[in-house]
């Protein structure tokens, strides 16, 4: 069955999710074309109302809200995606190597991960960020490291089931190196759960970065970012204006969409029923 046919037969929630993800990616890629104003350009007075020249009004410093929303897609999604990829490269490769090598490599890595996971993520991130300072680079590295522990657990567990199979043993006896074992024998058989995990991790990372930015400790101004946009304009809510909720809604919508799609994929791969 082709990919399109799969999508056509997917439940409504998953189709909605796929559509939204596509939309977000398009907005992120074509941000400079879609946005009427620049990302950090001050174009009017602070807190101007909706309509007219400014589609969604202006923010606290007089920057166009709509343009910043569009650029926010690029910054927030981009950073979250980069972080997730890093977490998977680190956690995934360590997990696979731990499963293949076994012995003290496995023991050592697992204990380190146990200890890192014993600290609540947000607290650990705050602790590290207070020491190294809140820059985008340290943010990406810290969150990637923290999420790598979760990826490690999963990829190790999945790979453990694969490495005991005969074809891996055969490859070992053939004298294949670690690189071959990881990329040619184990990875293809561990791909499905890892892809679903990638979606879930992305949601977590995305919410995490938004929360940190909302707390003023994530992506730093003047970069347009959804979390800090909510924080900067939150005062408007007490006047019944919903524009500060728009970036929060943007965050919620993409996480819901990814969750819907992942839910559908997990359902499909578990083979429970076709629906």
């Amino acid at each position, binding site marked *: 069955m082709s990919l399109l046919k799969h999508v056509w037969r997917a439940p409504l929630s998953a189709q909605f999710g796929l559509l939204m993800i596509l939309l977000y990616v398009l907005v992120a890629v074509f941000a400079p074309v879609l946005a009427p104003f620049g990302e950090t350009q001050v174009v009017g007075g602070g807190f101007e109302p909706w309509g007219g020249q400014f589609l969604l009004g202006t923010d606290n410093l007089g920057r166009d809200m709509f343009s910043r929303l569009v650029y926010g897609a690029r910054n927030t999604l981009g950073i979250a995606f980069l972080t997730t990829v890093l977490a998977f490269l680190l956690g995934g490769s360590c997990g696979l190597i731990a499963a293949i090598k076994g012995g003290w490599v496995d023991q050592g890595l697992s204990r380190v991960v146990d200890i890192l996971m014993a600290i609540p993520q947000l607290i650990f991130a705050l602790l590290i960020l*207070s020491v190294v300072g809140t820059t985008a680079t340290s943010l990406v590295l810290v969150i990637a490291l923290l999420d790598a522990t979760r990826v490690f657990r999963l990829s190790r567990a999945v790979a453990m089931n694969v490495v005991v199979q005969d074809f891996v043993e055969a490859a070992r006896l053939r004298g294949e190196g670690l690189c071959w074992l990881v990329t040619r024998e184990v990875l293809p058989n561990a791909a499905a759960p890892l892809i679903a995990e990638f979606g879930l991790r992305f949601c977590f990372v995305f919410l995490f970065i*938004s929360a940190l930015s909302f707390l003023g400790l994530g992506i730093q101004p003047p970069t347009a970012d959804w979390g800090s946009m909510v924080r900067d304009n*939150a005062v408007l809510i007490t006047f019944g204006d919903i524009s500060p909720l728009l970036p929060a809604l943007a965050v919620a919508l993409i996480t819901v969409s990814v969750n819907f799609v992942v839910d559908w994929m997990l359902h499909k791969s578990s083979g429970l029923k076709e629906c």
Partner: protein
Amino acid sequence: MRSIFKLLGQRLALGLLSLFAVSVIIFLAVGMLPGDIAQAMLGQSATPETVAAYRAQLGLDLPPLSRFGHWIWQLLHGDLGVSLANQRPIAELVGSRLGNTFSLALLAALVSVPLALCLGMLAALYRNSWFDRLLNTSALSAVSFPEFFVAYILILVFAVKLNWFPSISNLAPDASLGTILERSVLPVATLSLVVIAQMMRMTRASLINLLASPYIEMARLKGISQSRIIFRHALPNALAPIVNVVALNLAYLVVGVVVVEVVFVYPGLGQLLVDSVAKRDIPVVQACSLIFAATYILLNTSADVLSIASNPRLMHPKG
């Protein structure tokens, strides 16, 4: 019974070990600071002699191991150190806030645990019905919402449009219980909504797993009434996963409190932590992280212990 005590002992030891490891990590984090605390406290204009004298006063010239010992010793005696920002003892700063944070988390737990368990059980019993689907989809959405989004929607609806509750939950130290409760409604609602969704999903999943097992099928074939199947056959076995779910979510609650406190300007530990991170007031960050991490580990360990203790199979080992 021997094996169960051994298992419990192992879990407790593991909890203590991670607590120790966490305190080492938190201690080391300060060591990674560019420059050191003495320099940071005295500012740029301090002469090298004053810095050296101050280092000696703080005990920073001692080797790391004895400094760590000293730090732990002071912690165990309730001395959390002094804040860099305003030179006040941290225990004083933390004191009342700690109570506020825990009461917020406790209230949220009291609201969310019974509600989530009931909803989860109902969803499991009537699985694949429209009720279950509705609950499941809304739970999935609620899990994906950032906490500040839920919080601001509640503020917009209940504080601004309906004007039922205040949008800001700052508490005076001498506030009456009524005021405290009224001001805690929206923060508690926010926390509960997020946690209920997760707890409900996990309860439903563990119950559905259980209801599919052969002995339940057997009980049904014997013609036992539905309620007896649930209370006599299913529930004792479901207790372990459910207890686990509850404890894990309480651990989440204690941490999730941070964002909610900031939104509602609630005078809790989370807000102190966030403020201190922004000010890079390391000793306060250290103290707050340690308290949060210790609570988290405590709850996680008790989740393990309770799920072992409530597992009927482990209570009656064969042979």
